[in-house]
């Protein structure tokens, strides 16, 4: 089982860094171009949320990503220690956004749900948020 941990400053210029890094790790599963783009998209959504919602655009926060490859699937957790969420169900509602003034479209969670095989959200107000994503690339290997 292969794993990595990546931590970086909560700066928006790290959004592209994060999605390229995770997709470079996932390259070991031999994904299609389309799958690579999907991975980059969901990582971009989760990391952007950590920066603008979790840390409210403060640049002194830390975003951490744990990744692992297991049974042909990419498992990724994106973690921030920011403001957290009161109501995860509301947050996951399609088109809901707490920041319409920032031209947020409110479909970040919808995209993560649609482009991944599983998603778990763990959040507590004042403590932060952990998003766990699982995306199958190769057919599951019986080991």
């Amino acid at each position, binding site marked *: 089982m292969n794993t990595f941990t990546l931590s970086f400053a909560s700066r*928006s*210029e790290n*959004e*592209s860094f994060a*999605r390229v890094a995770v997709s470079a790790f996932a390259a070991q599963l031999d994904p299609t171009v*389309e799958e690579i*783009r*999907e991975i*980059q*998209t969901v990582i*971009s*959504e989760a990391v*952007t949320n950590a*920066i*603008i919602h979790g840390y409210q655009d403060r640049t002194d926060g830390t975003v951490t990503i744990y990744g692992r490859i297991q049974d042909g699937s990419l498992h990724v957790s994106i973690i921030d220690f920011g403001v957290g969420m009161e109501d995860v169900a509301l947050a996951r509602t399609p088109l809901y956004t707490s920041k319409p003034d*920032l*031209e*947020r*479209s409110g*479909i*970040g969670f*919808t*995209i993560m749900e*649609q482009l991944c095989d599983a998603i778990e959200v763990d959040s507590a107000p004042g403590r932060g948020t952990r998003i766990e994503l699982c995306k199958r690339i190769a057919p599951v290997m019986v080991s």
Partner: protein
Amino acid sequence: MKMIDIAIEHTGDTLIVRLCGELDHHQADTVRTHMESSLSAPHVRHIVLNCAQLTFMDSSGIGVILGRYKQIIPRQGKLLICNANETVHRLMELAGLFKIATLVKDEGEAMQHVGVLQ
């Protein structure tokens, strides 16, 4: 780090916007600023978004597009989109963008559409 290039062409009452590169939250401001300044010309009504060179976009890009669409609604403007890659197209579909925007094959078809609208 220049991840996105924006070329904007004015044709009559239409803006042709060609995005080249990656449109995420970090790049959203740049795209918004450029498009807003072009939209400040009061005769501009329609927007044609050519995504042929847009290699990556996430929901922040959707937000920028919807924001500009809202600016042309009072002008009875239309939003036309062409040449998005598979993932970008899928994202636009998920976002319900094709309920308000017209999907066209290319810039030529887009210009035919807005021509008919004159």
